[in-house]
C-alpha cells in the first residue's frame, strides 16, 4: 500500500523508458522500413548483419570511437586538473569556483553556435588570429578538415561538459579527511606519491562516476554535431547517434535504427563494467 508513493516517480520511467526500450529491441529484430512496400516481419539478426556490412555504419562507429577516445580522458583529466586547482586556497578562488561552473548552464546548442562562428571560414576570429600569429598563410576552412572539425566539435562539447565532473571531483577533494593528508606528510610522501596514495585513492568512486558520465555523454553526443558540422566533412564527424537519427527520419528504416540503438546500449553497459573493474571498486556503493 505504502509502495504507492513510488508510482509518480517510476511511472514515467517505465512507460517512456523501459517500454520504448523493449520496443526498440523488437524493432531491432524486425524488418521495418517504411520506404519499401514490404510489411514489417521478423528477421532475427538480419538488421545487425546488414549494419555490420554497411560501410556508413562502420565509418560512424569509428568516428564515435575517436570522439570517445578523445573526450573521455580529456573530461576526466581537465575536470581533475580544474578541481585540484580550485581546491587550493588563494585569493579569488571562491569566485573562480562559480565561474568554472557557468558553462554547465549553457545549452550545448548555444555553445556549438559560438564555436561555429569562431571557426567560420571568412568571418571567424580564429582564422584572423592564426594569420596574425603566422600559423596560416591564408584563411582555412577549418570545418572541412576532418580531424580539425572533430576537434572543434569536441571543444564545444568539452566546454559545457567539464563543469559538472569538476564540481563532483572538487566536492570529493574537499571531503578528504585532514588526518589522511597529515599521515602522508608524516610518512614523508613526495607530492606525486601523496597525490596517488591519498587524493586519487579517495577520489576513485567519484572518478568512476565521472568516467561513466563522460562515456554516456560521448556515446550519446548529438547536439554539437547537428549545430556545427551536420556530420561532415565526408561523414567524419557523423557520430553514431546522428547516424541513427538519419536512419530513422531520412531513411525511415526503423529496424536498422533499432539495431544500432541496442548496440549503443550494449557498448554503454560494457564500458561501465570495464571502468568498474579497472578502478577495482569492489562492491559499487550505490547504497551507503
Amino acid at each position: 500500500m505504502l509502495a504507492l508513493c513510488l508510482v509518480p516517480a517510476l511511472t514515467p520511467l517505465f512507460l517512456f523508458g523501459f517500454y520504448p526500450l523493449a520496443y526498440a529491441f523488437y524493432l531491432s529484430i524486425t524488418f521495418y522500413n517504411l520506404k519499401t512496400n514490404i510489411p514489417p516481419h521478423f528477421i532475427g539478426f538480419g538488421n545487425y548483419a546488414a549494419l555490420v556490412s554497411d560501410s556508413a555504419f562502420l565509418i560512424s562507429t569509428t568516428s564515435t570511437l575517436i570522439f570517445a577516445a578523445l573526450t573521455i580522458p580529456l573530461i576526466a583529466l581537465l575536470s581533475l586538473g580544474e578541481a585540484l586547482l580550485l581546491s587550493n586556497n588563494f585569493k579569488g578562488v571562491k569566485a573562480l569556483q562559480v565561474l568554472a561552473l557557468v558553462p554547465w548552464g549553457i545549452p550545448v546548442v548555444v555553445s556549438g553556435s559560438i564555436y561555429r562562428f569562431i571557426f567560420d571560414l571568412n568571418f571567424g576570429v580564429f582564422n584572423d588570429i592564426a594569420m596574425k600569429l603566422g600559423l596560416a598563410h591564408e584563411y582555412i576552412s577549418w570545418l572541412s578538415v576532418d580531424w580539425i572539425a572533430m576537434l572543434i566539435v569536441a571543444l564545444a562539447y568539452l566546454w559545457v561538459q567539464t563543469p559538472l565532473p569538476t564540481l563532483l571531483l572538487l566536492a570529493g577533494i574537499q571531503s578528504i579527511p585532514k588526518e589522511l593528508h597529515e599521515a602522508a606528510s608524516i610518512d614523508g610522501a613526495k607530492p606525486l606519491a601523496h597525490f596517488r596514495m591519498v587524493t586519487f585513492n579517495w577520489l576513485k568512486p567519484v572518478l568512476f562516476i565521472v568516467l561513466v558520465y563522460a562515456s554516456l555523454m560521448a556515446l550519446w553526443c548529438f547536439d554539437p554535431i547537428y549545430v556545427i558540422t551536420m556530420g561532415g566533412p565526408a561523414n567524419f564527424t557523423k557520430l553514431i547517434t546522428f547516424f541513427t537519427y538519419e536512419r530513422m527520419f531520412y531513411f525511415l528504416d526503423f529496424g536498422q535504427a533499432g539495431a544500432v540503438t541496442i548496440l549503443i546500449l550494449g557498448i554503454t553497459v560494457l564500458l561501465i563494467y570495464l571502468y568498474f573493474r579497472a578502478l577495482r571498486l569492489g562492491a559499487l556503493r550505490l547504497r551507503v
Partner: protein
Amino acid sequence: MERRKIGLYLGAIVLALWVLLPIYWMANLSLQSEIEIYTVPPFYFAPHPSINNYWFSFDIESAVKYFLTQGQALSLFIPGVMKDFPRSILNSVIVGVTVMIYNILAGTLGAFGLTRIKFKGAMPLFYASIAGRLIPPVVIAVPYYVIIKSVGLLDNLVAVILVHIMFTMPFTIWILNTYLLTIPTDIEDAARVEGYSYLEILRKVTFPLIGPAVVAIGITSFMISYGEFFFALLLTQSAASHTMPVIIGSAVSVPRVTKGLICSMGMIGILPAIAIVILFRRYLIGGLVAGAVK
C-alpha cells in the same frame, strides 16, 4: 612557495579565459551590427556597441524592415523560426520548471519510499530506476514518437515534459536516495512513535532535512531540461511548442544567417541558467556531494 603561487594564478587565468572567451565572443558579436560582423578581419571589440539585436530578438518584424533599409548587399537571411523566439524562451522555462517541480515532488516521495518503508522489491525497483539512466536517448526516440503520436500529443509541450521527466528521474532518485541514507533516522523514528503517519513524517521531518539535496536535484533537472535539444527537435513543430534550443539549433546552420541576432538570442537564452548556477551554487555542492562521494 612563490613558484607554487605563480603556478596557481597561471592556472586560474587559463581557467577563467577558457570559460569567458567564448562567452565574450558571443557578447561581442551580439553588440555589433550585421555589417560589422560580416567584415574581414573581425572586430575584437564592437566598434559601435548597440543593443539593437536584443530588441530585434523580440521583434523580428522590425528586424526584417531594418535589414531591408540596409540594402540587399549583405543578402542576409533571417530563418522563419526566429520569429518564435520570445515564445520559445517562455516554453523552455515552462518545460524546465514543470520538470523541476515534478522531480522534486515525485522524486522525494519515491526516494522516501525506497529508503524508509521496508517492502519487498525495494531494491530491484531502486536498481531499475538507476538503470533508467543507461537508456540512450536515441533508443527511445522512435517508440516514444509513435506513442506520443498515437495519443495526439505531438507538437505539445506535454510530450517534451514527459520525456524530460523520464531522463532526469533516475539521477534524482539516486541522489535523494543516497542523501536520505546519510541522515540519521532518530527523529523520524521518534515521530513515528508519536503516531505520525509516513506522509506526515516526510512533510514535517524529512523534507526539511534533505533541503540541500532537493535544491540540487531541482536545479540539475531544470538545467538538463532547459537545454535539451534532441527530443525538443523531434517532438515540436510549431511556434506554440518550440523551445529555445530548437530555435537556435535550426537557425544557426543557415548560410549567411543574421549572426548578431543568434548571438543576442543565445545571450538571453543562457541568462536563466547562469543566474541559477550563481545563486544556488552552495546547495549544489552540499546536495550533490553527499550523493556522489559518500
